[in-house]
């Protein structure tokens, strides 16, 4: 029998049919993300390494949310205003030890995935506020391109540190460029302005022998072929407003899909019943499982800060996964 790690890699990286449907929420040691204080501010809120203020709210399940006055008003002035985190000030080994203590370090059994939050587009929105950032992409594309390039240079330095200290199998870049109904920007704007930087980051990750994933919530099915083209092994947090089955049929041999659960629908609600949760997990396993190249992922947004409420939301989902993961 395969280890969960081998089984996961078979689906997510080799794009083949695994022995059972892997579960992102249990087969993975997930490092990074909110622990990067230089990216998301210190726990409980504060400034990140770019000078952006973050705070934690109850309805965000304790997750950090950017706010405060935008650091950058005029994109053309970015070179004089935007500062980047000093990655050498960060206690990499201390952070690794702390996270390994929380999430475990059974590297032979589970894959190690490092979540690199705040991708190039998201970082622009954190610096400028969403609306200004979106306008800037249309009104000042050259300046945006230059800032995206600088953010990518910084991210590549981050990848070097992560590779050295965390030695992950996978690095996932989180760039939420989509909304419930479609991309934030036109596919043309994505392709001309963001995609080249996503590609350069993917290439840098691969140069360290690490597998690149990209996380994008919302409806982004139009650019899945682009994610394939820039060498992304898996698209994560796939939500069912996308034609996931169609994507698996068409691109499953080139890119894996991690997700499926209806996190924004009834089963994603705090008050979802166990029957509703069960039924949606079963739907995922039956609909997407047979294609291979699929990893289940599902969570519920819970109110209340702290990891306990997050876990409380996930447990019944994971129980259902155990029940249905062998469906052929």
């Amino acid at each position: 029998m395969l280890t969960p790690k081998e089984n996961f890699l078979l689906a997510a990286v080799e794009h083949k049919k695994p022995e059972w449907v892997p579960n992102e929420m249990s087969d993975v040691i997930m490092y990074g993300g909110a622990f990067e204080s230089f990216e998301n501010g210190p726990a409980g809120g504060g400034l990140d390494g770019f000078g952006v203020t973050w705070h934690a709210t109850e309805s965000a399940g304790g997750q950090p949310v950017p706010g405060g006055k935008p650091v950058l008003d005029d994109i053309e002035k970015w070179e004089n205003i935007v500062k980047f985190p000093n990655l050498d000030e960060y206690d990499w080994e201390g952070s690794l030890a702390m996270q390994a203590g929380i999430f475990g370090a059974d590297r032979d059994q589970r894959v190690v995935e490092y979540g690199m939050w705040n991708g190039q587009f998201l970082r622009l929105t954190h610096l400028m506020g969403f609306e200004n950032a979106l306008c800037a992409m249309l009104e000042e594309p050259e300046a945006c391109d230059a800032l995206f390039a600088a953010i990518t240079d910084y991210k590549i330095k981050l990848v070097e540190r992560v590779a050295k200290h965390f030695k992950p199998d996978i690095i996932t870049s989180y760039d939420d460029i989509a909304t419930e109904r479609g991309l934030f920007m036109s596919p043309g704007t994505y392709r001309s302005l963001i995609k080249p930087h996503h590609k350069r980051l993917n290439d840098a990750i691969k140069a360290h022998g690490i597998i690149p994933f990209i996380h994008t919530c919302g409806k982004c099915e139009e650019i899945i072929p682009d994610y394939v083209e820039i060498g992304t092994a898996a698209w994560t947090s796939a939500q069912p407003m996308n034609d996931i089955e169609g994507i698996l049929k068409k691109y499953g041999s080139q890119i894996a899909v991690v997700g499926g659960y209806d996190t924004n629908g009834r089963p994603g609600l705090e008050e979802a019943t166990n029957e509703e949760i069960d039924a949606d997990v079963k739907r995922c396993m039956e609909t997407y499982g047979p294609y291979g190249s699929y990893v289940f992922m599902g969570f519920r947004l819970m109110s209340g800060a702290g990891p306990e409420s997050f876990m409380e939301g996930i447990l019944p989902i994971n129980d259902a996964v155990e029940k249905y993961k062998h469906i052929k």
Partner: protein
Amino acid sequence: MSKIEDVKVLVETGKSKKVAAAVQEALDAGDKAQDILDAMIASMGVVGDKFSSGEIFVPEMLIAAKAMSKGVEVLKPVMAGDGSSSLGTCIMGTVAGDLHDIGKNLVVMMLESAGFDMVDLGVDVPAERFVEAAKENNNVVLIACSGLLTTTMPALKEAVQTIKAAIPEMKVIVGGAPVTQEYADEIGADGYAPDAGSSAAKAKEIIGA
């Protein structure tokens, strides 16, 4: 092309740096301020429809709205005191616990372009604040509540119920990604719009304009 046509094209294509001058030129050429405003409202209607149908995206809509507001700035002093085009005041906000405002801001822009005087309460607005604002402002005909998180849908319900309990005749419209027509009905709202493009028509329908 007539000066008004120029203004329309500039609004639709979001050329905010050029609109003010074009509006001034139209005024200088003898076009009536009200006609220029109506033309810009029509342009935003076109932009809203294109957004609803997926032909354009959030940035295109934002720059169009920005362009329109530059044009309105030029018209304001000319039209001061002329309340004829107002549909009344609309209070809008994102409900308690919810910090998402991009969709709400687009709806504010569309309702404003359609002729409502907008009072934007921002994000994380407690239910009672909508009621207070309705009492503090003149000629409030509509309250619009936005909610983006499944965890704040109960706050949307509370907002509608608090408003209806305090001011039973007040019309309330709701929206946001997780909201559906069924949910709007269930919580007692008078209307629901799935996107910013359709929100203006719905809002007018609700108030009988």
